[in-house]
């Protein structure tokens, strides 16, 4: 039920690019991406609502393939501030409301 993310961890040099993948065994109608810095709460980055949708946030963008039940997060020209753990999440409708199911997480470390 929990989305699986890959890779589990990645180390980059400043300026390098990275891709984080999120795959679900359940049908996805939206995908949310969060970043959590060490010792802090997760911070919302973006939501993708439609199959095939792509969105951008600074040099971070994402795509969502509804048919494949997959989403990818693209980090371009990474900065030191991008370090942290990235989570995808989907919203599951249940009993007239919804709950958020988070992925396994990807730890990203950007080195100077």
């Amino acid at each position, binding site marked *: 039920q*929990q989305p699986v993310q890959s890779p589990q961890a990645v180390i980059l040099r400043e300026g390098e690019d990275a891709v984080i993948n999120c795959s679900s065994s359940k049908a996805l109608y939206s995908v*949310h991406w969060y970043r959590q810095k060490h*010792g*802090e*709460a*997760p*911070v*919302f980055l973006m*939501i993708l609502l439609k199959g095939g949708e792509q969105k951008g946030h600074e040099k971070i963008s994402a795509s969502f393939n509804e048919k494949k039940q997959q989403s990818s997060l693209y980090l371009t020209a990474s900065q030191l501030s991008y370090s942290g753990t990235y*989570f995808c*999440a989907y919203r599951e409708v*249940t*009993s*007239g*409301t*919804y*709950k*958020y*199911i*988070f*992925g*396994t*997480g990807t730890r990203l470390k950007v080195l100077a």
Partner: protein
Amino acid sequence: SQTIHQWPATLVQPVGSPLSLECTVEGTSNPNLYWYRQAAGRGLQLLFYSVGIGQISSEVPQNLSASRPQDRQFILSSKKLLLSDSGFYLCAWSTGEAFFGQGTRLTVV
């Protein structure tokens, strides 16, 4: 604007002691509220969620309970803590996307 307050920020409690963590939301009404737990280096596990006063849904049967005595207040409790209850507890609210409080780092010793 909406804000979410969670306290305390850190807590060290002995095994067998009770627990009460509080979360309040400002600037919105009738939010969905959530409690998550995160073990060290791990992902976010949903513990409880609530759609309104007195309405609590439990995701994982365990040593914890939750209550929502007021619209914008969500409380996580335990009568007797276990070592395995240690972790980072996060409260979140949502009317679309989930927004998190700053978290409580609980260490049970």
